């Protein structure tokens, strides 16, 4: 596309602009509302610096991130494996399908409480509960991906006797990539939301624990502070890890070269 080169140069400014625009809108809304339940960005920043100064912020953030990371890896791994198998084998799909729908629609609360009751009030129970909540989502997304696999490429691989590993790495995974990206990105967000509930119900630290503590006091600035601190971490992960990786993995698409500049 003409002009796409120029767009590359605008990337950071556009993003910055977008973030600044958000902050400006928020500040304006806070000034207009003029109520304690609607704190402005400065109040939230103020809270965050205080909380960061006494180390609380990083302590809880780190713990929550560790839980999110563990549950994410487990859920993506198991979910992708099961989803691809179900997408490829119709019998298995029919057999497991009701279970997936059940797990998908079981309220987080139920799964979490059952995990805490059965496994105990432990870290393992917390991570298991979160992973169990997320796995069916990954399964459902990756199953669609596996169903949309190009049979022509699969046939090619069969004729040239690709080993299982080669088939997976060079034929299947690249085709699943958009689905993995979708499942991963919305998955990270979902997991973090469930971690909040898990921490509320049975953990003694973490961002979710803090948010609920402040929710009892109805301290909106503190709630927003912790929420946005996590959002910032996610923004960093997105821009420092995910998007460069995505650009690299998509470099074969025509026009990718000029776009990535």
């Amino acid at each position, binding site marked *: 596309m003409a002009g796409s080169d120029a767009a590359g140069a605008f990337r950071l400014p556009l993003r910055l602009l977008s973030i600044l625009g958000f902050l400006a809108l928020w500040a304006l809304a806070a000034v207009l509302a003029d109520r304690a339940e609607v704190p402005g960005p400065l109040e939230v920043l103020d809270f965050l610096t205080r909380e960061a100064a006494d180390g609380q912020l990083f302590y809880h953030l780190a713990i929550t991130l560790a839980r999110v990371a563990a549950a994410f890896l487990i859920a993506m791994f198991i979910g992708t494996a099961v989803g691809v198998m179900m997408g490829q084998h119709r019998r298995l799909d029919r057999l497991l399908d009701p279970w997936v729908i059940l797990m998908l629609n079981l309220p987080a609360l139920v799964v979490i409480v059952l995990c805490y009751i059965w496994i105990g009030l432990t870290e393992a129970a917390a991570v298991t509960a979160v992973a169990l909540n997320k796995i069916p989502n990954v399964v459902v997304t990756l199953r669609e991906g596996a169903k949309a696999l190009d049979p*022509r*490429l699969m*046939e090619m691989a*069969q004729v040239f006797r690709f080993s299982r590993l080669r088939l997976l790495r060079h034929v299947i995974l690249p085709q699943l990539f958009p689905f993995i990206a979708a499942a991963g990105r919305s998955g990270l967000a979902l997991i973090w939301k469930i971690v909040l509930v898990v921490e509320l119900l049975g953990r003694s630290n973490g961002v979710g624990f803090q948010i609920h503590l402040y929710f009892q006091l109805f301290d909106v600035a503190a709630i927003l502070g912790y929420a946005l601190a996590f959002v910032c971490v996610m923004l960093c992960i997105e821009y420092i890890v995910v998007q460069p990786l995505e650009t690299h*993995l998509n470099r*074969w698409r025509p026009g990718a070269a000029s776009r990535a500049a």
Partner: protein
Amino acid sequence: MRHPGQLDVRIDSKIFRSADGAATQVLCGLGFTLSPGSFTCLIGPSGCGKTTTLRIVLGLDRDFAGKVTLSPPGLRMAAVFQEPRLLPWRTVEQNVRLALPPEEQGPGAAPDLDALFAVLGLKDLRARYPDELSVGLARRVALARAFAVMPDLLLLDEPFVSLDEHIADRLRHHLLQLWQARAATVLMVTHNVREAARLADRLLLLNGRPARLVGDVAVPVARAARGSEALGRFLDDLTREFPETVLA
């Protein structure tokens, strides 16, 4: 040195069921044997079932009545599909290397592909992705992939369309060389009867609905004499004998 295989094909019936529920019989009572090291061309009108036959031979379609035997099993096989079927997310060179048999995958074991790429005019394009190639170039990569395997059994589905005559001639020549050097068994589909007569030992003519074998003709011209008048005469005879199937 491994030995190329003998291929027995017997397709009693192949029926496709399309989305509107209609069932169409495409192939009926098709039987032939390819002896080791032979070069056979399959000719027939568009849509008659040539690709279907190749897919059955390749083991990609098992939903048919009949039997395909390839002995001994474990032969090296390669195919050039009617469309290039390259992995869009792998470069030209990766596409070729990934198709090599496992024992040639390692960095030390990998064959030198320079000569092959040179013949195919792909030397400067090794690092390109398939979507950056013209259709003719993509087709050449698909040919390179099949040639690089050095197969015992090679199936080609209209391999030389979308190429200009210069490069097509060079590639036909290369195919013959490979065939002779490996003593490979080759089955090739083409609409170009002249090409078929120049390359093959034997022509299988397919026609009808459902398609049957309407002709099984040995090419009576010695390979050395295939540039000559003799080939022209053979083609004229063929056209007369099978007016529905052949137009040379």
